[in-house]
């Protein structure tokens, strides 16, 4: 029996990185006299914000991306693009860099060995200890190499990436100068409501699991208000554990730049919370959490990052569905399952990423889909239900259409409490989804405020 029991995995890289200075006096001392840089959003060619590096600094310093400690050196980025590995050999999907324009670099006047004070919303936020200054020669080439090509990655890439792919646009929009080095947060940002209730960075999530007596925890990735199909995915996937179902079901919402038509982040996190406040999953078994990241929509690569984040949080299992973190038809719809099921040699993985050296320890739970079956009279799993003619699929866009028309969705689509959360934030923002006004204002106000700090 003992060997069948699954224990919580160690963090990716062996230990959790936590680069947060909690003593303000020491933080001030570290930042004193440093040149100052005010963090700016990354803008696309139309001037629309597509990324804010503050989110990467937060997720790095609070350990979500362990063992990454900061902005990457050129050799590390090159190794990631070639083999999806950091210089210390641990697998990692994406280049993460602190980029700035030639003009800003000139003004800043720093070089290797210098320290920069990074300000956010006008207040001291973090320091960056510069170890290398390098340049991205061609951001479009970097963007394409980051996500792959149909010729170079025929196992999973179906179409060349272009400006309709948000992740590709992020890399293409980067500034040319990179300051590589470790980040340290010196002035901890405070999350605004409702996000503050859901902030469980890896050290804290592991403590929370201990407090709740959870040994096995399955993670559900989300960027959506949960409909009943999502709820059943969570409940059914959680039957997979070891000698008993998973003790905990964790929802981890990716909070970042929004796209027109998405639900507002506030409705997403409170919608998931309503699943346990409404009693559809016991609150003792359900934990809603957030991670800051501007989604790249890199399907298999994004799933690798999701695996790293949730393994660092202490999860034993991760649900993956069809078209995981995907947009358009750039990747095979089962690209994530291919990565976790047999590997993608062209990305450097001849075997599943849980079976390669310095790979991941979190276990994938690859799920197909749930639909409503009028003949079964229930939400059915596609792997079980044989009523293919009668099935009624949950379509996110159909559900969004229903919401927009103001039709109260039937209980079998949305729990009434979850739908009312959408209405709550609809009243607040004047619109049920992210419209250009919400997208613009969100990137100005961000999810956090910073305490005043004099240096």
């Amino acid at each position: 029996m003992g060997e069948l029991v699954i224990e919580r995995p160690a963090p990716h890289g062996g230990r959790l990185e936590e680069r947060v200075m909690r003593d303000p006096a020491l933080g001030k001392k570290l930042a004193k006299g440093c040149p100052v840089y005010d963090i700016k959003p990354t803008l696309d060619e139309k001037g629309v914000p597509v990324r804010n590096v503050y989110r990467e600094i937060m997720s790095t310093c609070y350990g979500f991306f362990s063992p990454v400690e900061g902005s990457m050196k050129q050799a590390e980025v090159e190794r990631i693009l070639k083999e999806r590995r950091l210089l210390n050999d641990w697998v990692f999907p994406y280049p993460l860099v602190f980029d700035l324009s030639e003009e800003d670099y000139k003004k800043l006047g720093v070089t290797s060995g210098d320290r920069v004070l990074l300000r956010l919303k006008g207040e001291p936020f973090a320091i960056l200890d510069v170890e290398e200054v390098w340049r991205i020669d061609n951001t479009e080439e970097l963007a394409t190499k980051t996500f792959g090509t149909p010729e170079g990655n025929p196992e999973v890439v179906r179409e060349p990436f272009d400006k309709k792919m948000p992740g590709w646009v992020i890399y293409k929009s980067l500034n040319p100068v990179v300051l590589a080095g470790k980040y340290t947060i010196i002035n901890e940002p405070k999350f605004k409501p409702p996000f503050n209730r859901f902030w469980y960075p890896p050290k804290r999530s592991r403590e929370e699991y201990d407090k709740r007596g959870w040994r096995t925890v399955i993670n559900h990735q989300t960027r959506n208000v949960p409909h009943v199909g999502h709820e059943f995915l969570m409940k059914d996937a959680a039957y997979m554990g070891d000698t008993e179902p998973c003790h905990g079901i964790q929802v981890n919402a990716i909070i970042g730049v929004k796209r027109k038509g998405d639900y507002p982040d506030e409705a997403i996190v409170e919608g998931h919370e309503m699943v346990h406040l409404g009693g559809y999953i016991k609150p003792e078994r359900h934990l809603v959490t957030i991670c800051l990241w501007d989604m790249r929509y890199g399907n298999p690569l994004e799933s690798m990052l999701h695996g790293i984040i949730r393994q660092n949080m202490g999860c034993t299992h991760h649900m993956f569905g069809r078209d995981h973190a995907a947009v358009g038809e750039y990747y095979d719809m089962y690209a994530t399952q291919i990565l976790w099921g047999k590997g993608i040699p062209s990305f450097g993985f001849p075997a599943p990423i849980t079976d390669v050296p310095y790979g991941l320890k979190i276990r994938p739970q690859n799920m197909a889909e749930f639909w409503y079956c009028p003949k079964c009279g229930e939400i059915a799993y596609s792997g079980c239900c044989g009523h293919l003619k009668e099935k009624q699929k949950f379509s996110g866009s159909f559900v969004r259409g229903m919401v927009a028309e103001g039709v109260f969705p039937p209980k079998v689509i949305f729990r009434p409490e979850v739908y009312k959360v959408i209405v709550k934030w609809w009243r607040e923002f004047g619109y049920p989804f992210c419209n250009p006004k919400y997208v613009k204002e969100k990137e100005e106000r961000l999810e956090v405020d910073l305490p005043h700090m004099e240096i």
Partner: protein
Amino acid sequence: MAHKFAVLLDEKRMGAIKGSGLEEKVSSLFGGALQTFILEVPEDKSKQIMDAFDTARIDSRGFITDLPIAFNRTIFEEIAKSKSLGVEALDGVLKRVSEIKKAAAKESESLPPPDIDISDIEKLQKTPRQTG
């Protein structure tokens, strides 16, 4: 390839088609919880709709979705007028594309939220189980 389009029918719309003969064409979804008209959209009409509205997409069920609310409203009006789920209704909508686009531009800024009581969830949120 031909696609489909679903027109949602709430109480008001069900009332508007009463006695028109269209009641027989109502499809029930999700165990009778939702009433809809399901329109068959021929390939050429589907292409015209997709070309006219850049947000439109075909979902995994083969349905045309993500159209402006004004489109959905207009197609219901055309169905009610022509008493048909056939191409007449689609042709009627396609003649009104510029009118729909104007209404859609206004609707992309602001939409009136439904007038429903949400005090039960506000009460639940007063005692959250997670306090952060």
